[in-house]
């Protein structure tokens, strides 16, 4: 019997790995020193632990430890990357290229910079979720200072051709930042192989603690300089002031080490479970639509629309399972997911989408249980759905004149 509720929303956050907690505990208790205290053992112990963790974080992405700037999380990393480059290279140019499916931490940072006078190109994506590389090439001008394209999308899990994007950026002498928050530790990600200059990461997406992240900043060929967004004591080589979150960083390091060592085995297992979930649902239910490319996708991600069943009502029916929906009703904005919209998913289908995020601690029994519950609830709600009834009668729903005001 599976233990309820089941957590299957691992793109939102992941549970802390018990091994990570064990590594952190001494730094939450006896070893409480400030890593910046240079004149006693408490400080030395903290500094040593931070440097060991930094090595592990660097090793996960094939970087040098001196290229890792610790932050409070992915949002700060994204802000530091984009604002840091924009402010540092303002003399060189005022143009930034990004994509419409980026995380809000990138999009809203870019919009902020637009108000400061920077120009931003928001590239569209195709119906699989990919940026067109020719669009990217054409968008680059001699005023372009930064390209920021995420590695893997947090909603649909689509993995961009980062290596090729990095190559294009390098050929044109433009810096390349990637939000690798969902990718790092889940799929192979190497900053040198992929021509990445700056990369954002977050500990809590890879079974580490919340409140700690990192920004990879390339040191040579090219050497990247950033204007800090937080001023103060000059920690992190002046790029990010503030007393280091020692227990958080130690946890991040341990989480990165586990992720690196288990990546091959774990991603194979995630993919197997994801495919079992997908094929079971597709065998039992009709009119399912996968959002985003199925193949170039995070192994644990399944984003699917269940036509004629509104997402929030589906979540309500499977309330012993934690997943998320692109439906408007689950968000404060009352707008369905902008990512799905960018992929050309109609609003009718966007309202019916569910994101499953399978993670390290999900079991096959849980996947079977989730599939069974979803099938049962979708069938029940379709019996209740006037749209399903109309579709079965052969009515083309697109041809119906919907009166939004009675």
């Amino acid at each position: 019997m599976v233990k309820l509720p089941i957590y299957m929303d691992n793109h939102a956050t992941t549970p802390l790995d018990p091994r990570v907690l064990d590594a952190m505990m001494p730094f939450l208790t006896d070893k409480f020193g400030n890593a910046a205290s240079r004149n006693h053992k408490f400080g030395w112990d903290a500094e040593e632990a931070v440097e060991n963790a930094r090595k592990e974080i660097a090793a996960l992405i094939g970087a040098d430890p001196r290229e890792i700037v610790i932050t409070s999380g992915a949002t700060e990393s994204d802000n530091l990357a984009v604002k840091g480059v924009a402010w540092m290279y303002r003399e060189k140019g005022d143009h930034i290229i990004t994509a419409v499916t980026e995380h809000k931490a990138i999009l809203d940072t870019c919009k902020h910079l637009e108000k400061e006078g920077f120009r931003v190109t928001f590239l569209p994506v195709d119906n699989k979720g990919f940026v067109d590389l020719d669009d990217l090439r054409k968008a680059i001008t001699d005023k372009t200072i930064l390209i920021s394209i995420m590695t893997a999308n947090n909603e649909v899990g689509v993995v961009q051709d980062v290596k090729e994007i990095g190559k294009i950026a390098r050929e044109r002498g433009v810096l390349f930042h990637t939000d690798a928050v969902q990718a790092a530790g889940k799929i192979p990600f190497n900053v040198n192989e992929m021509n990445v200059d700056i990369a954002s990461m977050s500990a809590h997406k890879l079974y580490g603690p919340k409140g700690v992240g990192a920004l990879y900043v390339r040191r040579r060929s090219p050497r990247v300089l950033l204007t800090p967004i937080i001023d103060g004591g000059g920690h992190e080589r002046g790029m990010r002031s503030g007393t280091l979150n020692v227990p958080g960083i130690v946890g991040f390091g341990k989480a990165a080490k586990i992720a690196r060592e288990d990546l091959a085995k774990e991603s194979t297992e995630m993919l197997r479970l994801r495919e079992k979930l997908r094929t079971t649902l597709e065998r039992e239910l009709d009119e399912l639509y996968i959002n985003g490319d199925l193949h170039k996708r995070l192994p644990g991600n399944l984003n699917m629309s269940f036509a004629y069943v509104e997402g929030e009502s589906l979540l309500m029916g499977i309330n012993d399972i934690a997943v998320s929906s692109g439906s408007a009703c689950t968000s404060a904005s009352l707008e369905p997911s902008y990512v799905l919209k960018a992929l050309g998913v109609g609003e009718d289908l966007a309202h019916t989408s569910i994101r499953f995020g399978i993670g390290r601690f999900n079991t096959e029994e849980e996947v079977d249980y989730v599939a069974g519950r979803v099938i049962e609830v979708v069938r029940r709600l379709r019996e209740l759905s006037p749209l399903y009834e109309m579709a079965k009668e052969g009515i083309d729903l697109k041809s119906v004149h919907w009166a939004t005001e009675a």
Partner: protein
Amino acid sequence: MAYSDKVIDHYNNPRNVGALPKEDPSVGTGLVGAPECGDVMKLQIKVNESGVIEDAKFKTFGCGSAIASSSLATEWVKGKTLTEALAIKNTDIVKELSLPPVKIHCSVLAEDAIKAAITDWKKKHEEKG
């Protein structure tokens, strides 16, 4: 979002789910909302010769509150005259189901569905002249 017990009850045990024959002269059908907005309600009433709604059915595409609002609407219209049914206000539904502000549109849609069903029934009868 936390749902009230009444919303959960209607969601788990919706009253009067189903369909009445659309072409039947004693049946009025209201279809309101739009798939793009995430809510579509179909509410049907069957009116007897003394002008009383003797049966009502619904089907709803929408969130739990939308399902509950339309389920409640069918319960309330049954046994009422058309005039009485027209007097049902969305605020009554909000109160009964303890809907939060973001879900008030569900109750508005349910009121619209009742009105649309009655309008459809009246239209059938005017045509007959």
